[in-house]
């Protein structure tokens, strides 16, 4: 089977052109592909449509860097600190550019991706009835159930061009193991035209194939696998490292003004050619303090026959 391992720069160059719709931050607070997002910023992508459930500061960074034209998401901000200043500047003042916002909730964006994953035009739901999210949404539409006439909202399928998913481990052929709360990772990976995995570890295929139930989505969807240790920092990766709460607080302070954000961006993104140099800039001591302190291995499962 063909190897799909690429460098981060090459994977982003090849598979995420200007104007792409990109699903990311799909596990909610953990496993956010910051390394991939920072590469999008360095390559100065423009007019991206970002798709996701809640987004913990990566959307805010991409918006502040001018990469984004449209957001289809349930929440954009900083989970432990509050608002996202770049999101506010873009929507309130058009800085650095105006932003089209399609509001979802976590359930409705999950159903929109699931509809695409199932190959159906829409999924009906009863959440959001009577809300202004439903009233103002350009695609969600009210319709009585044809079966019993009760009110429902039809959530149309949403197919991202590409989903970027950070995982614990993947093999070179493009199969990934991920564990913890999955958010909408599975729906997005199945819905997207293709998936880029950024992985803490690239492991032999035997490791992945020893536990096929833990594989997120079939290899036929995989565009590329990128070895990106530390690639989700400051978000957590179960079994590898914890959330760097202080980094979210620092970002909050340092993104209050556009000028401060530009300085933050120079220091942490434009000034770092890749994730290895980012982690070096973070410093050994801080990085070590975030690493998982003890192993908590699951019991093996027996696939024998």
């Amino acid at each position, binding site marked *: 089977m063909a190897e799909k391992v690429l460098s981060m720069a090459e994977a982003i160059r090849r598979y995420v052109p200007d104007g792409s719709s990109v699903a990311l931050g799909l*596990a*909610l*607070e*953990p496993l956010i592909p910051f390394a991939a997002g920072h590469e999008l910023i360095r390559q100065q992508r423009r007019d991206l449509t970002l798709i996701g*459930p*809640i987004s*913990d500061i990566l959307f805010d960074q991409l918006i502040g860097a001018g990469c984004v034209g449209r957001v289809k*998401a*349930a*929440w*954009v*901000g900083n*989970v*432990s600190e*509050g*608002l*996202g200043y770049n*999101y*506010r500047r873009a*929507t*309130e003042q058009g800085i650095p550019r105006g932003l089209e916002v399609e*509001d*979802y*909730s*976590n*359930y*409705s964006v*999950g*159903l929109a991706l*699931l509809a695409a994953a199932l190959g159906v035009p829409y999924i009906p*739901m*009863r*959440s*959001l*009835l*009577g*809300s*202004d*999210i439903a009233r*103002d949404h350009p695609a969600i539409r009210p319709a009585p159930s044809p079966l019993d006439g*009760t*009110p*429902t909202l039809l959530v149309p399928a949403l197919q991202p061009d590409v989903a970027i998913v950070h995982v614990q481990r993947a093999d070179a052929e493009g199969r990934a193991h991920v*564990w*913890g*709360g*999955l*958010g*909408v*990772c*599975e*729906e997005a990976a199945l819905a997207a035209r293709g998936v880029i995995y950024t992985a803490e570890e690239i492991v032999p295929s035997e490791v992945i194939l020893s536990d096929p139930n833990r594989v997120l989505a079939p290899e036929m969807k995989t565009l590329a696998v990128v070895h990106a240790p530390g690639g989700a920092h400051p*978000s*957590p990766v*179960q079994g590898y490292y*914890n*959330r760097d*709460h202080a980094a979210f607080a620092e970002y909050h302070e340092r993104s209050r003004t556009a000028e401060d954000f530009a300085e933050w961006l120079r220091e942490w993104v434009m000034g770092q050619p890749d994730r290895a140099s980012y982690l070096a800039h973070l410093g050994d001591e801080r990085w070590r303090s975030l690493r*998982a302190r003890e192993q*908590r291995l699951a019991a093996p499962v027996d696939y024998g026959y």
Partner: protein
Amino acid sequence: MSTAAGEYTPQELMVVCAARQIRDGEVVFVGMRLPLIAFALAKRTHAPTAVGLFENGLVRDTPSPELLLTMGDAPNILGAEWATRTVALMGLLAQGCAQLGFVGGAEVDRFGNLNTSYVGRREHPTVKLPGSGGGADIASLAGRLAIIMAHDRKRFPERVSYVTSPGYGDGGDWRERVGLPRGGPAAVITTLAVLGFTDDTHEMELRSWHPGGSPEGVRAQTGWDLRVAADATETPAPTADELRIIRECDPQGFWTR
């Protein structure tokens, strides 16, 4: 604020009030921020068999061993009963499996509708708030909704300019008319008071004011002529036990100081 049990902060009192909303044995859709610690407090006091659902895809029947800043923090996953997909958990909520859900809000109105999206016109907002997250789903689908808010006149307008999360609409049987399957706000826990909703019109009313405050003080910080329940009283202060557990859960006071 202080009590026989010692000094406490408004946030600690809010956590206690939120925890008291959880009944033993209930399935609770736990939201972001203060409810994360309220769930842990309830589990360790009066609701040991409550079960928590977390929208990132977790079910827990034990409190997290460490303070959570987000529901996706690593300690919340270790020891979970189930780690799964958001849609699977939201599906349980949609079926009616969660008796109680928590949300926070930036603005709440007379009928418990919440705005966490746009202050001002949607096309040109004066403040763009982060949005729904799972809040609008919890408000739509949980058996009862508990809202956690800072309390001032700006945050308590008579009518919110944008309904992110539906409460009782314009009151009465509005939820039924729009097709929401159940639920609605049961409590609004604020920095000043605990409020509830009347049975028929579903209008907000004052149920208890926090120690040191008064019904007049709460009414002065509310943007309409707030009703006061006939049996309204002072909010019972936290017990020594509740304060001890909160401080064990949040020793640095990240959420509670």
